[in-house]
């Protein structure tokens, strides 16, 4: 099951990226978390048929990914993981809402397709911003920011552990599936095998998670996330957060593609 093993390495790569040194990485995690939250809020506040107005919001994840040296291919792969959810949530929209809202040349576009596209765009944008956030902050950095922003410690620790547990789960699953595959004589995994395998996986990961927790306790872990980098919220952080918030507000109030279209078509007349 080389595939699952590769996925695990891929997951780890995101964490490793978060511990790099760059101007963006050095910013206070709170500034980045708040900017991402403002971004998600602005994107989700658009109406269900809005598509054009959402496009300029691409600037946020794309520019951060470029400045934070997050590889494009990697980012697209991670966003790809969110696509099945989009399909699942919006697949019925074009069927249920058939009212034609737009005519592009000879092609009539129904409300269902517009709302599907709008939803897909919103999900891709928020997923991209979340992936970039972790890649330029690290999961521990995000947890620390949430804690310093007032989230109860018990929730922060849960998020941190959930993140670590993903690694344990994938690693153990990869081992089990490899062992099965080597003796499966080419047969696919059947639903009969799946039940016991899943149960066994849970028990194995439970044991392993317990040992990791013991190792953490043995080194003084008492429920609080500490980071070597604990920056104070400075001018740079305020500027980063303020500039993006203003940008989101402007882009939310002014439909930039529509405005440009009007200007261009007005100029042509």
């Amino acid at each position: 099951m080389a595939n699952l093993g590769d996925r695990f390495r891929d997951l780890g790569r995101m964490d490793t990226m978060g511990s790099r040194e760059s101007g963006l990485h050095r910013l206070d995690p709170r500034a980045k978390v708040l900017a991402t939250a403002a971004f998600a809020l602005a994107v989700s506040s658009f109406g269900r048929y809005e598509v054009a107005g959402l496009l300029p919001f691409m600037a946020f994840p794309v520019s951060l990914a470029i400045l934070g040296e997050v590889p494009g291919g990697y980012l697209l792969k991670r966003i790809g993981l969110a696509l099945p959810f989009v399909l699942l949530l919006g697949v019925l929209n074009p069927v249920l809402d058939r009212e034609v809202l737009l005519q592009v040349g000879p092609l009539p576009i129904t409300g269902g397709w517009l709302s599907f596209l709008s939803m897909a765009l919103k999900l891709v944008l928020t997923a991209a911003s979340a992936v970039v956030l972790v890649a330029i902050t690290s999961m521990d950095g995000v947890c620390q920011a949430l804690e310093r922003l007032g989230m109860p410690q018990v929730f922060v620790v849960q998020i941190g552990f959930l993140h670590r547990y993903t690694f344990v789960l994938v690693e153990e699953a990869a081992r089990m599936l490899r062992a099965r595959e080597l003796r499966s004589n080419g047969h696919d995994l059947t639903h009969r095998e799946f039940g016991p395998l899943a149960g066994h996986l849970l028990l194995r990961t439970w044991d392993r998670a317990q040992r990791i927790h013991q190792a953490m306790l043995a080194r003084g872990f008492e429920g609080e996330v500490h980071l070597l980098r604990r920056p104070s919220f400075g001018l740079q952080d305020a500027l980063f957060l303020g500039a993006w918030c203003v940008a989101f507000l402007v882009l939310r109030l002014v439909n930039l593609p529509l405005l440009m279209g009007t200007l261009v078509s007005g100029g042509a007349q």
Partner: protein
Amino acid sequence: MSHHIVEAIDLCHCYGDGTQALTNITFRIHHGESVALVGANGAGKSTLLQHLNGVLLPTSGTIRIGEVPLVKETLRDIRRTVGMVFQDPDDQLFSPTIGQDVAFGPLNMGLPPADVAARVHEALERMEALHLKDKPVYRLSAGEKRRAAIATVLSMTPDILVLDEPTSGLDPRARRQLLGLLKAFRHTKIIATHDLDLVLELCPRTLVLHEGRVKADGSTREIFADQALLTACHLEKPLTMQGCPKCGGIP
């Protein structure tokens, strides 16, 4: 230096399912001693080690680190004093990079970032693992993982080092390197292992556990020369003490 003493008095441990893992274990390990804990699989070595820094608490009896009894209230201090290196380095290394993992302990101790960075550097350098600082765990070989795992504990500057199977899964060169590094430590060392040749090199004193009880406690050479004891405890003489298979001579 009395705080480097490790003492168990009538220590018993019974697991939740009723398994009696340890029965009336009593020993006293002094400052700077290097003691091996040997025994067959299931003899109770790992259970005993887990009592030394409070991962498990005794069902009855007492553990003392220095003059401090190990109870819930003293756990924090005892965990700073006793550094525990787990059997599987993958359980010990859980942060994105080795540097962050080595910093985990000192950060939990509340040290300022500059001190933490200095300790990380020092611990990694001591384990000849400074070049691994920014590497993720899954890129490391078994030997590198083991050295990094020990560095995660050294950065907390413990007085007592407890190592569970430090050489398992290592190739001969990595094992030799680790042995050299461990030899240089001045800490009180307690090493649970099946590698009896390592015991001969590192530990003048050996505790033999069998079915949860201390079967022997004394000089390593004397214990390893006692064939009847070794057989009764499902152990074999270390290779270096076994005669040549051809001529029967001992090198």
